[in-house]
């Protein structure tokens, strides 16, 4: 049957799954030792405090145990993970100066085109280092800083601020992989939006992990000052290998008084990836954080962006979708702490399981004694596409304040036979009917995404749904 019925062009499976060699790349030995950590630090010519921070984090890492409540990470052998792979280039601010393999990678992912079309700035990381960073003049004239975090760390103007904020929202003691991140972090972006500055176009960082058996540990630090407004987009992908790769990035977001930050992610790591990423934001009075999160890739995922509403009247919205297919165990969700009066949080998530995939929605909503007159609502819907898959919902609520309203609703189900019959009776094939329902199910999330990403997400769903029947 002709497959031209959809408005979205079919995408090539090889879109994400291509790789290049590592000729001329620097690759440190696998494993985790103080020597490796010192070597990473030395290569970066970091301030002394950062080296101490790394070594302390490594100690914490060694002392902590891995999570015992989520998907198994037994397939992840840290002694075989290469924590640092430096591509054969320095950071550039024009695509043409990049080596061909690196440039071709981002071309094929459509990053330069997107930059021309609708982005105010782009950062691109290849393995352990940023290889490209550029921002439009208009944005830099507004006083906005968007650079590599290591670059900012070497700038006396920004070093004190980074030292003040770095890994304070996500301390290395938080969990084993936060400690790991503290020890071996490399690359990532620094964004500073001054008071009352509103950027109309988004900034985007794209993370590409090309190296086999390696880890990526980028650190993203964003400070949105009082009254300012930013939309930040993060994309990630990698080619598929038959050994484990690890992503343990950290994202720390500071949202000022009456400031607004939207953080959108489409995660499409290859299915050999262990994605143990940590993202956290804190909102001051009247500030708002909006998360839009799509998780499609990875073999194992642990991902729970956290919002700490510490200022009065601060708000958080979280819109997420997770699609777990064959061989995937994606444990995703979010955490919210209502820690001030009049705060509010709205969480809406969708998850889809197919082909033996496991998807777990995990959340925590904590209302502290200070959360007078606050409200939180959690809505989570799961769709099971077959009986080989799993879909679990594990929401926790800890309420310690009288005048709060916390609502929670969860449903798990499948596509009804009646719906499929109705669509088929109008001439739509079963596969297309199911894809249509799944796209409709995902619609509340895709409509929160920038158009290009919504199209990409629909394509990913279509790709996942192909061959889902029979």
């Amino acid at each position, binding site marked *: 049957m002709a497959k031209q019925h959809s408005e979205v062009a079919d995408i090539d499976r090889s879109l994400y799954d291509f790789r290049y060699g590592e000729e001329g790349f620097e690759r440190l030995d696998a494993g985790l030792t103080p020597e490796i950590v010192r070597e990473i630090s030395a290569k970066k010519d970091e301030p002394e405090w950062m080296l101490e921070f790394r070594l302390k984090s490594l100690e914490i890492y060694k002392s902590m145990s891995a999570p015992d409540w989520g998907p198994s990470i037994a*397939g992840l052998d840290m002694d075989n993970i290469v924590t640092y792979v430096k591509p054969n280039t320095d950071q550039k601010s024009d695509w043409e100066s990049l080596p061909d393999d690196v440039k071709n990678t981002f071309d094929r992912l459509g990053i330069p085109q997107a930059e021309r079309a609708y982005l105010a700035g782009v950062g691109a990381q290849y393995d352990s280092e940023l290889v490209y960073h550029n921002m439009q003049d208009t944005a830099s004239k507004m006083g906005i800083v968007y650079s590599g975090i290591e670059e900012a760390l070497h700038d006396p103007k920004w070093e004190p601020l980074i030292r003040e904020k770095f890994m304070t929202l996500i301390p290395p003691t938080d969990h084993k992989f936060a400690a790991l991140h503290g020890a071996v972090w490399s690359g990532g972006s620094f964004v500073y939006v001054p008071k009352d500055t509103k950027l109309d176009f988004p900034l985007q960082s794209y993370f590409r992990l090309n190296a086999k058996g390696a880890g990526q540990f980028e650190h993203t630090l964003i400070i949105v000052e009082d009254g300012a407004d930013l939309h930040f987009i993060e994309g990630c992908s990698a080619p598929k290998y038959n050994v484990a790769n690890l992503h343990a990035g950290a994202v720390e977001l500071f949202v000022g008084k009456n400031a607004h930050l939207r953080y959108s992610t489409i995660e499409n790591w290859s299915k050999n990836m262990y994605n143990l990423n940590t993202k956290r934001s804190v909102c001051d009075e009247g500030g708002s954080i909006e998360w839009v999160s799509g998780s499609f890739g990875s073999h194992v995922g642990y991902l729970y962006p956290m919002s700490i509403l510490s200022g009065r009247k601060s708000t958080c919205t979280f819109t997420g979708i997770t699609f777990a297919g064959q061989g995937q165990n994606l*444990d995703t969700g979010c955490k919210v702490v209502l820690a001030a009066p009049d705060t509010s949080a709205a969480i809406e998530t969708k998850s889809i399981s197919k082909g033996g995939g496991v998807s777990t929605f995990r959340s925590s909503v904590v209302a502290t004694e200070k959360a007078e007159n606050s409200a939180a609502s959690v809505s989570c819907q799961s769709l099971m596409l077959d009986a080989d898959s799993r879909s679990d*919902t594990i929401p926790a*609520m800890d309420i310690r304040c009288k005048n709060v309203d*916390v609502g929670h609703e969860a449903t798990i189900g499948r596509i009804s036979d009646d719906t499929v019959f109705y669509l088929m009776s109008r001439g739509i094939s079963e596969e297309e009917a199911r894809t249509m329902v799944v796209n409709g199910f995902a619609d509340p999330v895709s409509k929160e995404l920038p158009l290009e990403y919504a199209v990409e997400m629909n394509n990913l769903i279509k790709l996942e749904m192909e061959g889902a029947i029979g």
Partner: protein
Amino acid sequence: MVETTTTTLRANALISPTWHRLDMNEAEVDVVDSIADGIEIHVPEGAQEAEFGAFATAALAAWATRPDQAKTQNNTQPDDEILNGSEVNLDLAATSPVTRDMPQAFEHGMGRTAGEWLAAHAAKTRAVRVPAGTALAEPIVVHAHGKNAAASVASLDVVVEEGASAQVLVCFDAPEAGEGVIGSTLGVFADADAHVDIQTVHAASDGFTTMDDTALFLDDDARITVRHTVLGAGKSFVGLAGNLSGKRSDVHVTTRYVGHGEEALDFNYLLRHRGEKTTCLMDAQGVLTDECTKILRGTIDLACGCAGAEGTETESVILADERVKNNSIPIILCSEDDVAGNHGATIGHMRPEQLNYLMSRGISQEAAERLFATATFEDAAITTPDAYTRQAIAKLAAEIGVPAQFDEAE
């Protein structure tokens, strides 16, 4: 003061735990090891004595007829088989803790350790059989009275045979002040088409810890209704686990509670849907006052093979004081596509339409919250068919100053 030894038991653990930092995964129960006989068990006419361990025997026998359910629930292999050197079989999803659990004929709601402790410390152990087709005219009644510095525990197995029906009433109370453990462990087997109604009432004073442990097994078309009412006890633990093994079997659990003072209430429910078209409803409602804390864990497990099953959990909690702490963790686990699992919770205030109605009749919000607490006592007294339980509720209400009005029993 009598010398006592105490033990700390892990209990009411989640089968699929979450972040340890939240401190919701399980509870600890401090128990005294000396045994006191504060137990009365009344078995009415029509019921017959059965052999020790009748529940486990019946459940294992029925379970053996369904070998499919007794297999591992997930086709995922353990990790050491997935791993082959450093290569990962990426076509198999990494296992989650819950998938490692082997299916069992029955589980204790409070967990194995607590269930075994209760059985070992029972002052009276009875096993009762309700013969096929018999509808018991009177309930099986357990009164567990608290004794100072000791554990007063009942152990009861009830096997309700095909087409039979029975009611089991359990009341925990403390005729005299003191400190100790009051508990029961129930095993209820409902054979095909059987119907069992179980009601437990916690009406003890704050010196006591109550432990209310239940294991259920349901065969085809069996129906079990459960009502747990917690009105008093310094620490109360309620754990119920049910295996809905039979086709079209149904469990309906109603939980009602009021927390006072510094009481700590700890509930753990686990209903495993294994038979086709099985249904469950868990409905919890309560009021928390003063400085009390409460945790409700509710897990619906829609296991592979339970096509057509439906599980629903609802919870509403009224927080009537600044100092209360409420934890809720309503879990749905699902490995079957042709099912429906639902959950809804409202935590904080009563529903606006309820409050509006009451306020339109001149009742303030505070008065309305008090009304809910008082009404829970009154409702418990009206619902129980057992005169002694009614007295225990009235006595507790008088002791802690709940202005409940009770109609005198006939």
